[in-house]
């Protein structure tokens, strides 16, 4: 997928002014956030399980070579073809070749963020001449608008019901123009009828994987709609695209993490469907795919192992961090400019496409810490964003005014005497701009004070007050 992450600031401005988007985003709090809190409270073990889940993933990553080897062996023994793709381009090419070998014309797809990451649909359409149909309802809504998902579990969360109705009327022109599309159920039903045709005629079905289990060589999908299951059961060929960090060792490790996934994502006790797929259909089976391929993607993830960003590989893509993020809640997912929005995107995107392109994202944080509080895998997201800021500074990718400002501050911070002297002189000077305890306007901070007031320092510095108080305590 092409990135517009470098344009983050302009993107955010557009998003803030978009009334329709703002109305769609308004539902986050009452919906996903409240539901998660309820589901967590209904499972007293939730907090303890987060630690167990974190250990499971840490252990897996520390032994990723061996678990990958075991997964591959067991998957092959069950009849899977396992392909290794180091880059996005490799993965696209492998998948296109499989589609060609299957003589495919129509390809159905279950929801897969990794497929977005590698820009799969455009490639299969352009280079392969294939018809690629997204079957998750949210993904379908986004695809017919030629947009990208704005949320990792609710791809069309930025759209209102009215927009969906307008799109259906514009596109489904073979249906009577005067049909009633007032209720969400009527819209769902229309999409169901259209996508049914695609399921029945597809030659290849592509899904992602929420997990890969080394013990059994299985790939796992977790859904509510059942579209992933129709995708992977009706086509003759099933292709799974999965990145390396989806591995878990055993079925017991899987069920432990599953207890956190749906509760963190949608606030359900469990998702409606959880499916383990192992190999192709068996000799006597009457249905299921005759061919089963798994494409394992690296795309820069191995480079994160052993780095300060390794923790991000624990992510199970539940979306809780973005549901609770004030920045995401204000601007939605598209402003982030690439596949993964919200706090996880701010950490993952610079890792996958470079800090030069995506350096703005880790800066777009209030550091409120909510994301780390809710992350089921206990990923210290704000710390990782801070690491990116450091990396960006070290790489010299910051604009001059930030660099100069930060370096000046750093100089004074390393020279406390000077710092205090300057602060003592500076504070009375600042009172020139003080308007009833707040600054409406400050030199060198115009872009900050344009939108808000800065509280004015009250009289003496903290160090002065501290020194006085200490003196008082001792006397």
């Amino acid at each position, binding site marked *: 997928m092409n990135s517009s992450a470098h344009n983050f600031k302009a993107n955010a401005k557009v998003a803030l002014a978009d009334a329709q988007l703002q109305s769609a985003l308004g539902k986050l709090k009452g*919906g996903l956030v409240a539901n998660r809190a309820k589901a967590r409270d209904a499972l*007293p*073990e939730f907090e303890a*399980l987060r630690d167990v889940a974190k250990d*499971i993933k840490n252990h897996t990553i520390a*032994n990723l*070579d*061996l678990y990958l080897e075991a997964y591959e062996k067991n998957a092959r023994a069950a009849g899977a073809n396992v392909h*290794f*793709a*180091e880059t996005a381009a490799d993965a696209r*090419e*492998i998948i296109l*070749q499989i589609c*060609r070998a299957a003589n495919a014309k129509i390809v159905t797809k279950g929801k897969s963020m990794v497929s977005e990451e590698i820009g799969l649909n455009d490639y299969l359409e352009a*280079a392969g001449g294939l018809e690629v149909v997204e079957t*998750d*309802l*949210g993904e379908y809504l986004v695809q017919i608008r030629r947009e990208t998902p704005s949320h990792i579990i*609710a*791809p*069309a969360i930025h*759209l209102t*019901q009215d927009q*969906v109705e307008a799109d259906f009327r514009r596109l489904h022109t073979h249906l009577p123009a005067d049909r009633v599309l007032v209720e*969400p*159920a009527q819209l*769902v039903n229309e999409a*169901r009828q259209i996508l049914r045709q695609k399921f029945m005629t597809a030659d290849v079905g592509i899904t992602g994987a929420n997990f890969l289990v080394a*013990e059994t060589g*299985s790939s796992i999908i977790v859904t*509510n*709609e*059942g*579209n992933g*299951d129709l995708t992977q059961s*009706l086509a003759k060929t099933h292709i799974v695209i999965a990145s390396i960090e989806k591995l878990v*060792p*055993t*079925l*017991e*490790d899987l*069920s*432990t993490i599953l207890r956190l996934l749906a509760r963190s994502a949608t606030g359900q*006790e*469990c*998702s*409606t*469907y959880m*499916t383990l*797929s*192992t*190999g192709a259909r*068996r000799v*006597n089976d009457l*249905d*299921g795919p005759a061919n089963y391929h798994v494409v*394992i993607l690296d795309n820069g993830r191995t*480079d994160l192992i*052993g780095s300060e960003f390794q923790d991000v590989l624990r992510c199970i893509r539940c979306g809780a961090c973005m549901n609770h993020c004030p920045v995401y809640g204000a601007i939605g997912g598209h402003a982030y400019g690439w596949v993964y929005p919200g706090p996880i995107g701010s950490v993952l995107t610079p890792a996958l496409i470079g800090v030069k392109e995506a350096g703005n994202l880790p800066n777009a944080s209030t550091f409120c810490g909510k994301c780390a509080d809710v992350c089921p895998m206990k990923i210290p997201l704000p710390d990782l964003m801070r690491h990116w800021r450091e990396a960006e500074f070290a790489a010299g990718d910051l604009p001059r005014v930030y660099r100069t400002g930060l370096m000046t501050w750093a100089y004074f911070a390393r020279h406390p005497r000077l710092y205090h002297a300057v602060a003592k002189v500076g504070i009375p000077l600042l009172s020139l701009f003080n308007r009833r305890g707040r600054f409406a306007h400050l030199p060198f901070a115009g872009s900050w004070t344009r939108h808000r007031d800065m509280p004015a320092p009250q009289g003496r510095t903290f160090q002065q007050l501290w020194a006085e108080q200490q003196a008082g305590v001792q006397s």
Partner: protein
Amino acid sequence: MSAREHDNAAARTQFFAKLKVALKDGPPAAARRGNVELRLQSPPSHPLPERVNKSRDQLRQQFRSYLEGQSATIIEVAGAAEVPSAIAAWLRENNLPHAVRNGDDAWLAALPWTTDPTLQRDAGPAQADDVVSLSHAIAAVSETGTLVLASGTDNPVTLNFVPENHIIVVEEGDLVGPYEAVWTRLRTRFGKGHMPRTVNFISGPSRTADIGGTLVTGAHGPRRLCVIFVRG
């Protein structure tokens, strides 16, 4: 158009070489292998939720209440002999045709179907115009109100997703507390490390909230899920 052929063997070698470099700060693979193999051989027992430590009766009630909360219908019958008439009654109640599609599950086949001669049963995987399907679950999980189905000629996977109405029969003897009990059963039934093509965990009719955040049942899979729970 097409780029170079993908050389999977070379890619695999490169993949593992990169992983080796990335893991260089930890112990070497040889030192870790024993531990990894042990975990794969005897999977760890992670803590289980308190809610699975209940009497059989409470587990059954819990299974029922979660499943109902997830928009499914659950009908309890006193014994296997009552299953055909319970199915017929449910079909009548919902104005559905008296025809179901099922696989060649031996337990289902042995039920006294002749008690209801109007009920037609067709064998095989789901067809596009099937309205009702019938499956036999290998387990009912109390923890979240979930049915577990294993694919095969006995219970073809498409029956779970293609028809608009799905009836799942499950026996009380197959009621378990946590998911972990399902893993144990799968290992016993299919052999350790072996699985059928698909194992489906189903916890209600299909649903979506993708249009304006409103929950709608009957997205792509069944609109109705009826669970017949056989006591005894």
